[in-house]
């Protein structure tokens, strides 16, 4: 009995300590729903989104009680997984539009690649990278691939989908962006640094430049994905350097050049529209970018903007358009509020006086250069030691760049499925090819692509050795040339001789058969979709031959430009 009383002497003080302990434990008195305590000064997204932070950044089930962890805060409210919940109340229409558009489904990329690699019988959309009401998710990649078709989904997921709205991008210069709708509508600077009013976020990398909707969307935003050898990069004049370390030049600044989009670049002449200050969104409206409701198959039918809308059709009827309203005689009002005089199509331009040119798309002549990347080799290397690839570490891929140091030395052995190494045979910006698009116009065509696929498993067995895939409908090689509309428009078109008389331009390849095994890559291959085609024999002949009609027109053009007058011929 005495012992019991004595026990109380220590029990009571101990028990009374318990309340004190709770002070040491993390209390739920930090409620992360009081955002503005830390994020004081943060901007409103815009006047139509002046909600409490929680409305966008917390799922409904997390809003009602104190929030004990910051991890539940949605960094990207518009990411595909929860955009319906967080934005759907007001934006159901836009979300449905986007879901069927190419930006969401990547239908062209997935359909064409899977078809060319023999994994599906036609290039129509069947799969989507994020959840979709109709399209299925990509089948899981086989763990023991044996054929090219076995590998295509792995390639798509681990190399191509870095530019998908639902995927977190590499945190590198030029590549920072949001997810879902935010990928376009919330502007991330190229350096990914927040420069707005929020003191907590200020100067931090991996955040939008400001917590605000981009109005209008700058060119750099589109380029976060539309970089590399793709339309978009050409608009600003970017052409990638070759991959080998010896092309990491120049060193004028006293150091290796700074990469953007994980690459070094040449600068070529930019599009005249870019020089005049036009943004991508000045031409490409919501319908082009987010689709018009129907499930899009490819860029060919998804994009509807045409040069003629501003510059007038071939026959020269005046027709103006601007982003806000018809301003018939004033010019083009861009999304930054500036007015641009628009040069109209004119018959007085010597080359426009040639009636046969009517069937050409404007870019057939007015594109100054394009992306001509011949002979891509794709090799998945599952071996632990990847040191042999050091010289090509810089190829627009974050994982590969990280495997080696700046001198190309291999840093760490790799476990699991290896990276996909990309390589080319040679790359050019000059000498464009021609073909026919789905609107029956003659347009530039480019190799897109001429795959040679290799796979080495982790034991070093070369399962596939530069295999050329077969199309899924067994109609031939899984190589294709596709139409594209180079955004390298210049006021003066290329010279007639760039196509006329040029075997390469009509799809017959550079020079002849005795030029070795590499140059046949310059021979055209059938495009993917049935409504596209290469030039047929008659068309090719007309382009190649110096017919009397060609000579007459060519002569007339030269005479007008050179100012030669027959009555008084000038001395040379």
């Amino acid at each position, binding site marked *: 009995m005495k012992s019991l009383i004595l026990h109380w002497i220590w029990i009571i003080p101990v028990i009374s300590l318990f309340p004190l302990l709770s002070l040491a434990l993390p209390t739920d008195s930090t409620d992360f729903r009081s955002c503005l305590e830390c994020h004081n000064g943060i901007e409103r997204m815009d006047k139509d989104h002046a909600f409490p932070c929680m409305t966008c950044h917390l799922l409904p089930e997390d809003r009602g009680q104190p929030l004990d962890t910051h991890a539940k805060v949605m960094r990207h409210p518009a990411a595909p997984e929860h955009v319906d919940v967080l934005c759907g109340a007001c934006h159901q229409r836009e979300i449905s539009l986007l879901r069927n558009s190419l930006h969401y489904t990547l239908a062209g990329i997935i359909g064409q690649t899977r078809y060319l690699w023999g994994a599906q019988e036609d290039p129509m959309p069947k799969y989507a990278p994020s959840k979709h009401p109709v399209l299925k998710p990509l089948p899981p990649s086989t763990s023991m691939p044996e054929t090219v078709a076995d590998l295509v989904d792995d390639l798509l997921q681990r190399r191509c989908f870095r530019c998908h709205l639902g995927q977190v991008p590499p945190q590198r210069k030029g590549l920072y962006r949001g997810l879902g709708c935010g990928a376009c509508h919330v502007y991330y600077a190229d350096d990914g640094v927040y420069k707005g009013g929020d003191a907590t976020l200020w100067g931090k990398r991996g955040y939008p430049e400001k917590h605000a909707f981009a109005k209008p969307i700058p060119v750099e935003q589109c380029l976060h994905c539309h970089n590399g050898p793709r339309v978009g990069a050409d608009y600003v*004049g970017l052409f990638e*350097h*070759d*991959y*080998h*370390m*010896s*092309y990491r*030049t*120049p*060193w*004028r600044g*006293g*150091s290796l050049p700074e990469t953007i989009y994980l690459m070094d670049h040449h*600068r*070529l*002449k930019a599009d005249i529209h870019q020089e005049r200050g036009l943004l991508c969104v000045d031409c490409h409206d919501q319908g082009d970018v987010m689709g018009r409701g129907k499930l899009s198959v490819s860029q060919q039918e998804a994009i509807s903007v045409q040069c003629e809308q501003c510059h007038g059709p071939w026959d020269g009827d005046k027709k103006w358009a601007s982003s806000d309203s018809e301003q018939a005689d004033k010019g083009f009002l861009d999304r930054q509020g500036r007015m641009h005089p628009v040069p109209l199509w004119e018959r007085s331009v010597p080359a426009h006086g040639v009636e046969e040119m009517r069937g050409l798309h404007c870019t057939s002549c007015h594109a*100054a*250069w394009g992306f001509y990347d011949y*002979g891509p080799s794709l*090799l998945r*290397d599952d071996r632990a030691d990847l040191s*042999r690839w050091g010289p*090509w570490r810089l190829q627009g891929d974050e994982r590969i760049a990280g495997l080696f140091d700046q001198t190309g030395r291999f840093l760490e052995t790799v476990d699991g499925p290896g990276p996909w190494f990309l*390589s*080319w*045979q*040679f*790359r050019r910006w*000059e000498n464009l090819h021609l073909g026919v698009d789905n609107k029956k116009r003659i347009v530039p065509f480019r190799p897109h692509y001429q795959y*040679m696929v*290799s796979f080495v498993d982790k034991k070093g067995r*070369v399962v596939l050795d*530069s295999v050329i895939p077969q199309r899924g409908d067994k109609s031939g090689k899984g190589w294709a040339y596709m139409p594209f509309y180079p955004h390298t428009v*210049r006021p*003066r078109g*290329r*010279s007639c*001789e760039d196509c006329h008389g040029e075997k390469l331009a009509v799809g017959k390849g550079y*020079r002849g058969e*005795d*030029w*070795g*095994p*590499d*140059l046949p890559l310059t021979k055209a291959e059938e495009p993917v979709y049935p409504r596209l085609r290469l030039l047929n024999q008659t068309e090719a002949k007309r382009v190649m031959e110096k017919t009397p009609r060609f*000579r*007459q027109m060519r*002569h*007339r053009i*030269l005479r007008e*430009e*050179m*100012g030669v007058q*027959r009555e*008084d*011929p*000038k*001395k*040379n």
Partner: protein
Amino acid sequence: MKKASLVALLVIAGVLVLIFAKERFREKEEGAPIDNCTLCHQPQGDPSPSHPVRVIGCSICHLGNPFAREEKRAHLGLVLNPGSLKVARLTCGRRGCHEDLPSRVEKSIMATNQGILTALQNRWPHDQTESVREVSQLISSSKGRSMALDHYRKMCGGCHLWKTRFRWKGEMGRRGGGCTNCHILELSAPRQDLSHKRFLHPQLTTRIPNENCLKCHNRSARTGLSYLGRFESEGYGTPFEGGQPNNRRLSGGRFYLELRPDVHHQKGGLACIDCHTEQGVMGDGNSYVHMEEQVDIRCKTCHEPEVKPLGGKEELAQRLKRVNGKQPPMDHIRGILSTKGSPLYHLRISGDNEIRFYRKLDGKEIAFRSLRKDQIHGAPYHKRLTCQACHSAWMPQCYGCHVALLKGEGQRDWLNGKVSPGRWVEGRSYLRFERTSLGIWPNGQIGPFAPGCQVFLDVFDEQGQHETENAHLSLTMASWDPHTTALSTPTCMACHLDPKVLGLGDGSLKVTEHGLEFTPLYESHASGLGIHFPLDAFVSPEGLPLQQASRKGSRPFNLGELKRITRVAYCLSCHDTYRDPIYLEWEKNFDRFQSGKAYCEGLK
């Protein structure tokens, strides 16, 4: 008595056996050996039919002490490679053998590298601390530490005849070695352990295979590579083979693409030596600064040949033919001489001046084409064109040579074999082979040009800091025969109206009555190069040279030439064959045009 004579006989027999045995111990081959070398070393095979070991022995070439019978004494003064220029006067060039050759070869440009040294030192004007004319000056002394010469030592000095052969593995090891550099048959000379008694003696030849030339002539202008149709590529190593970059490799981690070989190789199977004579390659005893001054062959030499009586050269022709060993019998009463008077012994002239060409490597006869004197080659308006201007199918163009000196690291000096401070690194901007630029060659004629070299030099100190005062630009366009001869030629417009071919660079060209309006494609300044013209622009649209030319007297087209060439395009839209009537009486028709008497409206 019987016993004594038996013993005596036995003793005599024993002594005789001993003597003979001892003698036989010395004789390993049939017949008496010339030197004692063969006591320990038994070469399998002779260096060549004219160098039979059992007739001339070993020490006549390899020196050493032929009388000694033990290793140390026998090897005193021994020379492993008799062809080395350091000993050639005592070995190959000894009295009674190839006496005149060592002094000729020492003065030849492959031994002096005068062209390389002159160009380097000339282009490095901001570091003229010393100046050197020939490689031998750099080897024998410790001179040559200026930046230009350090660059030479580490980046160029592996390609000359004074270099020691086989100090390193691979291509670098095979280069050099004086006479041996060219005259050895590499496949016959595996690296072997010479302490073993039997070994394969490397073979020498006068029928020098292309591989020997290509050891060195696969860099810089890459003439050896181009001749075989190989283009040093952008280094992708594709298509991959066996899960890695493929085997179309060159030394230094480079790869090549296969384009069209020179027609002489592709159709004729001609080797380098089928054109390049022994005098052109080994020199005529004069020391020339530039390669083209030593080369004694031109397209004309064979294709517009001047057949004449050889006179005193007949004997030399016969001797060279005999030494070749594969030529059919022929007299050399009349023949063709190279530009320096060397007889082309592999051409046979028959009575009616018909020429037959025999390949030097195998003696096979090749169909021979002389230049037709026709409208094409006789056209007066094209008389300034070299053969190469039209008949070169492609030319390797390496735009932007970025050179960096890293003072904090070390690199091997190929002249003395030691690593010394300072590492040179090279990078490039981009490559092309198509649409060769044209300009004026030093001889005043129009010929191909390509970058050679467009140096952007950056120097980094021991801590890796950029030394801005040493940053230097030296942009040069060079002219050479690309060795990509083709029968087919470009179309008229491909030269007359292509801005890149004219030297303006790739871009948009408009020819107006006021002059040329040109918008280039390549934005050098935005690409970080610090210049305001594209890398492929040799000349501005106003006719001002934008880059240096590699020789005094060579230059891009001037404004007058640019205007004349482009305005002809006006005619070429219709009159685009050589057989066009207006060109057949050119002067007369041009006058008619100038005076307004020509009707030039085009077709109705």
